[in-house]
């Protein structure tokens, strides 16, 4: 369990992390999400004692990181997969870690196998590794000491789709066995699929936190529907007082999908497509961090937003 309590880190007048509080529970994957430069990495660096906090505290399992003896045995950390001596072999990097923690060298082979780095690859120098391979090596390093808490900064960076799926399975399994996982990312889709709990951070401040359901509560419901007779369905829905707009080949109704289905059933209208059209996490995320995005407002780039009903709403997938 990681508890971050009113953590602030200032560089001069600039607050990289500004009064951040959250908890990462054991048995869950906690996603730490925010645009570039939002303070994710700084928060994680404070957690492991590399950067001193200006104020506030972080405890891991009830202890300050500095008070954990042989911390590698309790807390697995991956802050930057590229921060390894380019002239060392992958195996040597793990051997140094294992020796420091007092683990047998056989542990190195186990970890190499776990992250699917072959014997030949492990003997190559890190300089010749792709980012994906470095990431695998970094994850192997974090898991070396069989820790019960994992702190991973952008672990999916550079992994191919198969690698991302593999990591997702690995971390899920790890959390299911009771481990605490905190992982950061700027890619929402990646975190959305793995995290039980999400912390959204922008410009050093937590803008929202909770599980997916909680986060989406309060978002206006909407349904995207296509029927064999769209005009009739639109009329039926309007009669019920539901706002309807044309959206592509179908309609966008400002109500829950169940109400569209019920209306269609009552009037014997055949539906060919019905799905939720409410603003997804991505819209929420962009909306919450709008002031902190480097691109100003994402609308400028995509010309669409969940805040503007009536516009075509095919957000899902567009930003991916």
């Amino acid at each position, binding site marked *: 369990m990681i508890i971050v*309590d009113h953590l602030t880190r200032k560089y001069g007048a600039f607050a990289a992390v500004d009064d951040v509080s959250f908890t990462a529970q054991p048995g869950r994957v906690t996603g730490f999400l925010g645009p570039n430069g939002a303070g994710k990495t700084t928060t994680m660096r404070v957690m492991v004692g590399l950067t001193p906090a200006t104020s506030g505290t972080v405890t891991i399992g009830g202890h300050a990181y500095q008070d954990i003896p042989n911390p590698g045995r309790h807390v697995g950390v991956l802050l930057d997969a590229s921060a390894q*001596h380019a002239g060392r072999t992958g195996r*040597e990097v793990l051997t140094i870690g294992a020796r*420091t923690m007092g683990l047998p060298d056989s542990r190195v082979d186990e970890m190499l196998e776990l992250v699917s780095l072959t014997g030949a690859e492990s003997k190559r120098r890190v300089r010749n590794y792709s980012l994906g391979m470095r990431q695998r090596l970094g994850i192997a390093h974090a898991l070396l000491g069989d820790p019960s808490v994992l702190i991973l900064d952008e672990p999916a960076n550079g992994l191919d789709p198969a690698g991302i799926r593999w990591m997702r399975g690995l971390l899920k399994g790890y959390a299911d066995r009771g481990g605490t996982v905190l992982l950061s990312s700027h890619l929402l889709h990646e975190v959305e699929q793995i995290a039980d709990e999400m912390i959204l951070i922008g410009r050093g401040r937590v803008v929202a936190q909770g599980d997916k359901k909680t986060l989406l509560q309060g978002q206006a419901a909407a349904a995207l529907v296509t029927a064999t007779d769209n005009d009739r369905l639109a009329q039926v829905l309007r009669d019920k007082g539901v706002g309807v707009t044309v959206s592509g080949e179908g309609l966008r109704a400002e109500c829950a999908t169940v109400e569209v289905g019920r209306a269609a059933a009552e009037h014997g209208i055949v539906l060919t497509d019905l799905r939720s059209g409410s603003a997804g996490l991505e819209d929420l995320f962009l909306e919450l961090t709008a002031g902190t995005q480097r691109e100003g407002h994402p609308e400028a780039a995509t010309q669409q937003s969940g805040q503007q009903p009536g516009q075509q709403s095919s957000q899902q997938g567009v930003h991916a």
Partner: protein
Amino acid sequence: MSATIAPVPGTPGALDISSTPRVPLGRLVSVELRKSLDTRAGRWFTGSIVALCLAIVVIFALISDGGGLTYGDFLLVSGSVLGYFLPILVILMVTSEWSQRTGLVTFTLEPHRPRVVLAKFLAALVLGASLIVLAAAVAGLGALIAGAEWSVETGLLVNGFVVANLIGIVLGFAIAMLLMNTPAAIVTYFIYTLVLPTAVAILGAFQEWFADLAPWIEFNTAQATLFEGDYVPTGEETAQLVTSGLIWLVLPFVLGLLRLLRAEPK
């Protein structure tokens, strides 16, 4: 959502650290030693120093006709070659944590930085001592080739060979901690050992008052007495060594240590 109460030990999520001992210092030292030799750069550089010692000692043995030479002379040759390069080896041990960014991992696995610095310093001493022994063996080989007399003045062995090289290790360590950057540290080291004494000598040649002052403030000049065999430094010379050592060795070491203990590895 912000929980402010630390979990009571035994509750889920609390780490039981009672049965985990801290990383013993000896283990940290052995890891640091391993790190200094486990890259091609580290191995080749260390090997090259020994090879260079060997080459120069052998050349020295061959061009001399052995007349009147002692083992001590070879020790001085071998030791001065080592003395030039040993500090660079020590510099690399420290600066690579920053230039190769391995400090991120090193200081995470042992968050008590003074222990990491101590381990590194001890590792540098062990590595330096091993090389000093090797250099002594190389000198022996040279003496054997030249058929030199097997005698050495104790003062020379201790001061000129051992103490001078130990000073070199501390110096390299201090510069590395202060600059935390490999090229800058190496350049500074060479300016310090090659340019500074020359500059001081030139200044001293023109200004008499500076010539008198030089040994007090210039460490290399003050160290000269170390290489004069069984010569026992006078009280004044010892005082000069201490004063200049304070300025050029202790001060950078302390400032470097303070910087390293506060720095944020990126």
